[in-house]
């Protein structure tokens, strides 16, 4: 700690605080304000304060899309996380196996998706999923004949699976790195001791590896849950939130951020209800902030870790 004059402290802090007030704080406060009005495209000149009406409509109205979209998003988060953990764990175990030849080579290859710019790879994956010319269906035709074709992005369930696959492709290297780091810090004597005590490979994994890796996994998992929950780019670039089955229901991959975006900028929306969407945003923010506090409460350093992961969200 340095003892300095108050003036100095203010001078050091000022640029950051001013900038943050304008571009961080003001937009949030303004969104909060909007969420209590009936502001929409059609009444942008004479909108008025309506209290918590938007929130009531969002949370308690029967035709509100909030809960369907939220469940859909949570399902996506859970499915993705399970896949991340399984694929990340298996790859890390394989890369930690001293009997495997050429480990540095495998490591570079398996971590390659991490280095790729995610926006571009999302568009590449969209190409791979294409029905007629996409290589995935072309491979299928090699085995199952010309009429074969999986409607990857046209069928709701398949589109959901497709965006899970892409997210797994993008995110498993992060888990591989985190788990591999934890595995390499397990002292070799433990393996020896477990072997002498007669533990089989599964028992060793279950009772030695897993408990020792978990502390490193929890922050990574929370962080990934948060980033997947608010995922926009990758999914939007592939499906735009579709496919839409009925005009009344959100699309199968219309997760929270995409839903919000489509309700404001979507081509089919004539009269965006900014006030209502602001209430949606604020509710989501409350959820995200709660998750972040939960994460930091677990003794983790989410902001730094998120930087570590950031390059690829």
């Amino acid at each position, binding site marked *: *700690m*340095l003892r300095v004059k*108050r003036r100095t*402290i203010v001078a*050091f802090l000022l*640029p*950051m*605080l001013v900038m*943050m007030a304008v*571009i*961080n704080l*003001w*937009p*949030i406060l*303004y*969104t909060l304000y*909007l969420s209590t009005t009936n502001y929409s495209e059609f009444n942008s000149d004479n909108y008025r304060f309506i209290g918590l009406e938007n929130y009531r409509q969002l949370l308690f109205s029967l035709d509100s899309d909030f809960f369907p979209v939220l469940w859909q998003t949570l399902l996506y988060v859970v499915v993705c996380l399970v896949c991340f953990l399984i694929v990340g764990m298996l790859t890390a175990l*394989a890369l930690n*196996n001293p009997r*495997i030849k050429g480990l540095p080579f495998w490591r570079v*290859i398996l971590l*390659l*998706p991490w*280095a*790729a*710019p995610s*926006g*571009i*790879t999302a*568009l590449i*994956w969209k*190409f791979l999923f294409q029905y*007629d*010319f996409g290589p995935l269906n*072309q491979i299928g035709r090699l085995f199952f004949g010309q009429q074969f074709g999986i409607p990857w992005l046209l069928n709701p369930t398949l589109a959901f699976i497709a965006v899970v696959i892409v997210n797994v*492709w993008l995110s498993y290297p992060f888990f591989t790195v985190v788990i591999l780091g934890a595995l390499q810090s397990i002292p070799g004597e433990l393996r020896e001791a477990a072997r002498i005590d007669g533990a089989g490979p599964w028992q060793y994994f279950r009772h030695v590896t897993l408990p020792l890796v978990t502390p490193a996994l929890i922050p990574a998992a929370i962080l990934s849950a948060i980033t997947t929950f608010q995922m*926009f*780019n990758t999914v*939007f*670039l592939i499906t735009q939130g579709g496919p839409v089955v009925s005009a009344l229901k959100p699309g199968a991959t219309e997760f929270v*951020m995409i839903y*919000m975006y489509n309700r*404001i900028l979507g081509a089919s929306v004539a009269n965006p209800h*900014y006030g209502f969407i602001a209430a949606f*945003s604020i509710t*989501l*923010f409350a959820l*995200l*902030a709660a998750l*972040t506090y939960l994460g930091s409460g677990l003794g983790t*350093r*989410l*902001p*730094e870790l*998120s*930087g*570590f992961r950031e*390059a*690829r*969200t």
Partner: protein
Amino acid sequence: MSQKLPTAALEKQPAAFRTPARERAKRLQGRRAVAGLGTRLGLVGVYAFLVVMTIFALFPFYYVVQASFAGAQNLYTTDLHLFPAHFTFANYLTAFTQEPLLNWIGNTLLVCGLTALCGLVCSTSGAYALARFRFAGRELTLRALLTLQAFPGLLALTAYYLLLNALHLLNNLLGLVLIYSAGAIVFCCWNTKTYLDALPIELEQAALVDGATPFQAFWHIVLPLATPALAVAALFTFMTGWNEFALANLVLNANANGSNLTFILGLYSLQSDFRTPWGIFAAASVIVSLPLMVIFFFAQRYFRSGLAQGGLAN
């Protein structure tokens, strides 16, 4: 193999002990043989898994690279082509000559570069104050930073639109820089602050005792020492900008030939064409991804050490 040793030792046991010991050794050997077979099978399994994962990890890269060298007859077909039948550079030429690829790259470099710069300039002195000074409201600021970190800019879409409209920065790259800076400042501040927390304070104290002003201590002592953390923060900010689509799409409206877009918007507009020019798309993707991936791989170690010192290590 060391496994043979115990059995050999057992043979030398006196006769009286031999039977049970031998029995035990035999059973042990049998179990070991099974385990050995299991390990070998397991090893084959691990290799098989690695090969499958390699295909999964590399296929998108491979396919897009070969597609960038293939002619249209290879791409608009329902049959699989894993090698270009007629190797051609035409897609690369077209990407550079007919599409405003260089403009997109230039715009993206400008936006990301300015965002990183703005993030660092606005946050570094603040991060220093949070790390080194104690004052009323410090805890509150830290807590606010943590909360803001959880706020994706996308949530304030309407507010940002109105803000840029008021500042006459809509459809302007600087408007995009301003919005991106919101996230950049928070991230840069937090990363730098944790890095400085771990940096010894004695040098600055000595400088102050010798009559330096706090600003001189910050400028001449702390900034040079904090370079790794600043570089990491800048790189992350830079790379986040490369991939951002939603806010860019909000701020920028394509002009007649789309030369005012950022790279990801341009690539997206290529794909949403009525007849997607896959070959050109593939060539454009390769041109931009390759340098980024090379940078990432060379910077990776540096990344990790910069962040580790910034508090990631546990």
